[in-house]
């Protein structure tokens, strides 16, 4: 107890204008500024969305191992405010982990349609960019032909740091461009409309 107190005394009072996670006084002051100050409410939405990016579990390929490693204790992407979640209906981010086959392309679009907006997509790995080692396969789709993708990560597979970087990059995108608040105001996203796949990917659905 005594050591704790002395460490607090050494650190001094919290610095103005900075957000200390775990320091309730500073966080409350910042929230008060956001809520009662002259800021637009949209800013609060963007700020909140940036720190609650919840990717859905949608593992299609080997990049999923790196996805798992990113949220494991060593890299701990949860410190950015992103936590993988099970149900697509309660998430707002989809990380496309590698190859997407044609049949899975249908599932990808269905999962993406189920997510409430504002929603974002990260394409991970060479396969998700342009096919990677399966570039000439008859049975893959490029994920950007199926859903609008915000951030691409090159690599085969990308390191967990790269995925963490992509999440930080997406947070920056949301905060600087106000994507989330605009989406809510306008009801749709004009800069990235949802693409219409060239093929009928869901034809197997009807059997």
């Amino acid at each position, binding site marked *: 107890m005594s050591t704790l107190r002395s460490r607090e005394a050494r650190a001094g009072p919290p610095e103005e204008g900075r957000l200390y996670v775990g320091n309730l006084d500073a966080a409350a002051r910042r929230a008060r500024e956001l809520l009662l100050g002259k800021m637009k409410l949209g800013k609060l939405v963007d700020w909140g969305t940036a720190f609650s990016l919840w990717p859905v579990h949608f593992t299609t390929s080997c990049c999923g191992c790196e996805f798992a490693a990113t949220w494991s204790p060593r890299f701990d992407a949860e410190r950015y405010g992103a936590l993988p979640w099970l149900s697509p209906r309660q998430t707002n981010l989809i990380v496309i982990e590698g190859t997407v*086959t*044609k*049949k899975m392309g*249908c599932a990808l679009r269905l999962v993406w349609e189920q997510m409430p907006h504002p929603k974002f997509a990260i394409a991970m790995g060479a396969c998700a960019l342009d096919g990677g080692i399966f570039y*000439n*396969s*008859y*049975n893959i789709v490029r994920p950007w032909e199926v859903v609008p993708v915000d951030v691409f990560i090159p690599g085969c597979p990308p390191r967990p740091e790269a995925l963490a970087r992509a999440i930080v990059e997406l947070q920056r995108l949301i905060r600087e461009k106000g994507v989330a608040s605009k989406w809510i105001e306008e009801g749709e996203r004009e800069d990235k409309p949802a693409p219409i796949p060239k*093929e*009928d*990917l869901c*034809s*197997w659905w009807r*059997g």
Partner: protein
Amino acid sequence: MSLDAVRSRAEEALRGVYTGVEEGKGFVAFRVPAERVVEAAEALKSAGFDHVKSVTAVDRPKEGVIEVTYHVSSYSDPELARGIVGITVSLPRDNPRMPSLSRIWVSAEFQEREVFEFFGVVFEGHPDLRPILLIPPLAEKHPLRKDFIVKEEQVYKGGITKLEQPP
């Protein structure tokens, strides 16, 4: 050693049905005419080969045949589990049809669907013959047949390539 026992048991079961034998490491394949394949499968099943490990096919356009091979083995008999026995059927390439063996070995069901979509072999009497991995328009093209062309990777031949300028 161990394969010999498996081989003699399979040979005994298939006596008079098979027309040829091929042998590899830990593996022996019997060639069976298409109209007698059900009979051969029933004989193997009653000899103790209780499951299909894989169903696969080879397309031979020069000879005009598609060869379907069933690899069978056993879980219940430890002696038979040491080797894999194949039954190979040659089918005409322009109309490949054969009776389904999924009634005899249930584990063949999904793999017959796979051979159906990749090679276009029709298994008569199959309970649910639909494409399994591919979307239907693609399955109609039978991508593992030799005449299905994919874009090839290019080989770097050395030297500096001049980029062609568009006119």
